[in-house]
């Protein structure tokens, strides 16, 4: 790529969207109000598992300000279907996964604390809330089960009739025979039991919905906190049956973070949209934080046994993994794919792994649905691989960076086909590792450790050489694996007659900075000043159908679509320019918004071309007026960002407190459009990964099924004084199969960080512990290690 242009590709352009966010002019969902709107409050189950013998809503209906109270019966009577899961998984025995009904309001049974039972709509939020308490539900309590191992054990309470033994699927991938053979040959086997703790995504803006029905046009408009408004419209229309697709408009305005949890179509927006038509008034619902803890889809929650077979020089011969995944009480929108195709396909790590065999048994419990959370399956995979690799290094007395070096896929081996169906596109893993070692001063670590020891502290160093599959995804590939949708993206570049540009993208920004990055791309390619470019997203009424934002796909897929639209603009522009310059089209060259004829001084600008396109007085005869191009891009492969993170910690054995004294991240995201935004994405990801490893945990009471961590008083969010500053650098092996050469950066930090940090802590302690490494757990481990040393 040529030198960086001002505000072009590669420049740390300050964000366009910040002006409104910093002055209070952002428009988040709860900031929007419609004339004559009513307010909704949901009646939620206080029990984890219960039969509903009856619902008496009469008292609530007659309470002050109440407009309507609806239950599952009313939805069913209107033919409103349940929520769906969009990815089919086939079990080992060839059977499709068990897909029990997921009604938007309970039908006869509730299956987790917070399950939706009824909606109360009133003139004010306070009235709706007060009346919700008056809905009298006759519950017959049933025994709950919250842990996945318990739920899959014989004799567990049966949650859905359609899923005997609470199993959703029992799935496998890889070559079992080849893996058994590798283990038979191995001179050493490292074995590890791993728990990947359950997390609540917690975007700071709680979910919300506001729906409005216009009887004149029969149009139902739903404002919702969504990462993918078109996907929401498709599901709500084709599967739930709210309205025909062209009579449903979904708008996701400024959205305050998502991290996966706003991908899904939930009960609340479904019911609110239906109710708005029912009562012929706009209906608004805003989630409270405690409700968010109860009902937003949670993340992770795996229990895994992993075994790594090695030869006597530390070469990996085979990996065997058996995972139990908790899917919660119902299947959320993409839940089935997360512990399978988004997880086990990345168990190869950055290595020549020999053979791999993985099996995943997923099941139902009386807990909130579990689905994608930042990284979605890939953090779980990296956690398994990087923990067991580190453990093996310790078992064999090989330095952790050395055992990785011996097994890295070399840079000349790409494209590299793994035993678990992925073909890695490009990478240079040793380069990132070397750079990370240099930045953390690996050589100086023994001295630093000795110095800590002299102060009675334990110092540890932990690596995570992670890999992820991003830019999801080639539609045909994911279709063959069970996805119910294609995963392409759309973009539209619309020139206005005066030469300014409006970009429409099917991606959605909820913090990632698309309004800046996408404008940079067009500014760079078409020479339009960045202030004359606007990026519009998040409205199915104005933007071409798009698949939305998750899985670090916006730039790799949406940005590629944008490049294709830009190409079309240039192609058409050349024809117009040729006419204006009285030259042959073949002789016209385009560079950064200027069309010229080789070997002459003739030139016209993009603005002149745009004007001519809309005021075609002097214009090619056979060409349509207008300069407005739409493109769709379906990726050829996933992209594979990778890199090395190193955490250095100091543990106080007296208090169990873990101090992160240094954090180095070296990531290979391919080409970078805006390094400032990329660094910010890495910071945020690492913070969430550290949160998982050190602070965050979602706890359900095993007896009652109550969520014990349902507020910020009980669920430990990382705060400023829990975290260090980060040392973030990149390497660059461009993605070979998309036009920007980009790989995606949104999830890397959350994928790498838990393994790096736990490897550092266990290095310091000399014993294995599970996440989160709370002071109590660390203190106990330090005490037992010291006791053992004293024996």
């Amino acid at each position: 790529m040529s030198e960086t242009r001002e505000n072009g590709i590669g420049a740390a352009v300050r964000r366009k969207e910040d002006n409104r966010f910093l002055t209070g002019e952002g428009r988040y969902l709860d900031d929007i109000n419609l004339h004559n709107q009513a307010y909704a409050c949901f009646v939620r189950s206080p029990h984890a598992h219960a039969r509903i013998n009856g619902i008496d809503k009469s008292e609530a209906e007659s309470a002050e300000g109440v407009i309507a109270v609806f239950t599952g019966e009313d939805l069913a009577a209107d033919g409103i279907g349940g929520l769906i899961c969009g990815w089919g998984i086939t079990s080992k025995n060839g059977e499709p996964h068990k897909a029990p009904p997921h009604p938007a309001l309970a039908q006869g049974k509730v299956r987790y604390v917070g399950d939706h039972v009824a909606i109360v709509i009133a003139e004010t939020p306070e009235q709706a809330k007060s009346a919700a308490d008056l809905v009298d539900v006759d519950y017959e309590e049933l025994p709950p089960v919250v842990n996945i191992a318990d739920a899959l054990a014989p004799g567990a309470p049966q949650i859905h009739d359609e899923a005997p033994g609470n199993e959703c699927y029992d799935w496998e991938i890889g070559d079992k025979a080849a893996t058994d053979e590798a283990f038979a040959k191995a001179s050493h086997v490292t074995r590890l039991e791993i728990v990947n703790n359950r997390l609540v995504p917690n975007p700071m803006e709680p979910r919300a919905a506001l729906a409005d029905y216009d009887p004149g046009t029969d149009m139902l408009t739903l404002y919702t906190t969504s990462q993918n408004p078109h996907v929401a419209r498709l599901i709500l229309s084709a599967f739930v049956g709210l309205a025909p697709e062209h009579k449903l408009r979904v708008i996701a305005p400024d959205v305050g973070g998502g991290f996966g949890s706003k991908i899904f179509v939930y009960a609340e927006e479904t019911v609110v949209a239906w109710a708005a038509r029912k009562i012929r008034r706009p209906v608004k619902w805003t989630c409270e934080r405690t409700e968010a803890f109860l009902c937003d889809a949670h993340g992770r929650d795996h229990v895994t046994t992993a075994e790594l077979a090695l030869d006597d020089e530390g070469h990996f011969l085979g990996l065997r993994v058996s995972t139990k995944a908790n899917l919660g009480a119902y299947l959320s929108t993409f839940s089935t794919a997360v512990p399978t195709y988004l997880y086990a396909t990345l168990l190869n790590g950055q290595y020549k792994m020999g053979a791999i065999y993985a099996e995943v048994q997923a099941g139902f419990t009386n807990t909130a649905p579990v689905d994608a959370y930042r990284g979605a399956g890939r953090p779980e995979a990296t956690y398994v691989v990087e923990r067991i690799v580190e453990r093996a290094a310790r078992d064999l007395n090989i330095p952790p960076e050395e055992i990785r070096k011996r097994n890295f896929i070399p840079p000349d081996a790409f494209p590299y086909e793994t035993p678990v169906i992925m073909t890695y596109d490009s990478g240079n893993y040793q380069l990132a590792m070397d750079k990370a070692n240099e930045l953390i001063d690996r050589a100086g670590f023994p001295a630093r450790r000795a110095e800590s020891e002299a102060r009675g502290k334990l110092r540890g160093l932990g690596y995570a050489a992670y890999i992820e599959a991003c830019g999801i995804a080639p539609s045909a590939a994911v279709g063959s694996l069970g996805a119910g949708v294609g995963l392409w993206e759309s973009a539209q570049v619309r020139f206005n007659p005066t030469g300014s540009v409006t970009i429409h993208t099917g991606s959605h920004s909820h913090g990632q900075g698309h309004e800046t990055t996408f404008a940079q791309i067009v500014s760079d390619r078409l020479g339009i000043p960045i202030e004359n470019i606007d990026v519009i997203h998040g409205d199915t009424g104005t933007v071409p159908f798009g698949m939305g934002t998750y899985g670090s796909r916006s730039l790799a897929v949406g940005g590629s679509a944008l490049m294709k639209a830009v190409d079309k603009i240039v192609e058409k522009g050349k024809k117009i320019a040729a006419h204006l310059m009285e030259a042959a089209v073949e002789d016209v060259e385009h560079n950064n918004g200027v069309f010229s004829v080789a070997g002459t001084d003739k030139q016209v600008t993009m603005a002149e071309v745009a004007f001519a396109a809309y005021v075609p007085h002097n214009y090619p005869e056979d060409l349509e007026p207008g300069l407005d191009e739409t493109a769709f891009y379906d990726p050829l492969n996933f992209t594979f960002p990778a890199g090395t993170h190193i955490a250095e910690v100091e543990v106080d054995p007296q208090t169990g407190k873990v101090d992160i004294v240094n954090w180095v991240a070296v990531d290979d995201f391919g080409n970078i459009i805006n390094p400032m935004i990329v660094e910010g994405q890495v910071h945020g990801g690492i913070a969430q990964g550290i949160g998982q490893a050190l602070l965050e945990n979602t706890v359900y009471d095993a007896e009652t099924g109550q969520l014990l961590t349902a507020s910020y008083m009980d669920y430990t969010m990382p705060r400023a004084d829990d975290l260090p500053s980060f040392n973030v650098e990149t390497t660059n092996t461009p993605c070979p199969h998309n036009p920007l050469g980009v790989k995606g950066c949104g999830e890397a930090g959350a994928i790498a960080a838990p393994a790096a940090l736990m490897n550092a802590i266990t290095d310091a302690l000399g014993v294995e512990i599970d996440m989160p490494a709370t002071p109590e757990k660390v203190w106990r481990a330090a005490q037992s290690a010291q006791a053992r040393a004293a024996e």
Partner: protein
Amino acid sequence: MPTVTMTVNGKQVSADIDPRTLLADFIRVNLDLTGTHIGCDTSQCGACTILVNGDAVKSCTMLAVQADGAEVTTIEGLAENGEMHPMQAAFKEHHGLQCGFCTPGMVMSAIDLVKRHPNPDEATIREELDGNICRCTGYHNIVKAVKAAADATGG
């Protein structure tokens, strides 16, 4: 219904309100100043932070009637003549925000922080901001922005 009167962003406002109205709701609903956000129900997140008589206050912890007669500043009242406050400008310059939801509260807390610690070091900034949760940025760039704003305002 009691009447409350206060000065918000330099303008006197007055309204008859339900006595249980929270200051946060008064600002968002009655005054339609939606830059002040609600991120939790336990006074833990700081998204609703505003300045009351110059001090940072979580507006969800205060009744509107308690602010009777007070001088209130919200995020909408910081810029002067279209120029962002140095703290807002520093957040933009150092990419101290992503989704922007925590940002108004974060900026208000940071202004109060610099008022009390004109020359804060990193540890002080981190400690002082622990009443404000940000899920997006990992705080790295927020800390940088606050430091830069403190330096710029001649702390």
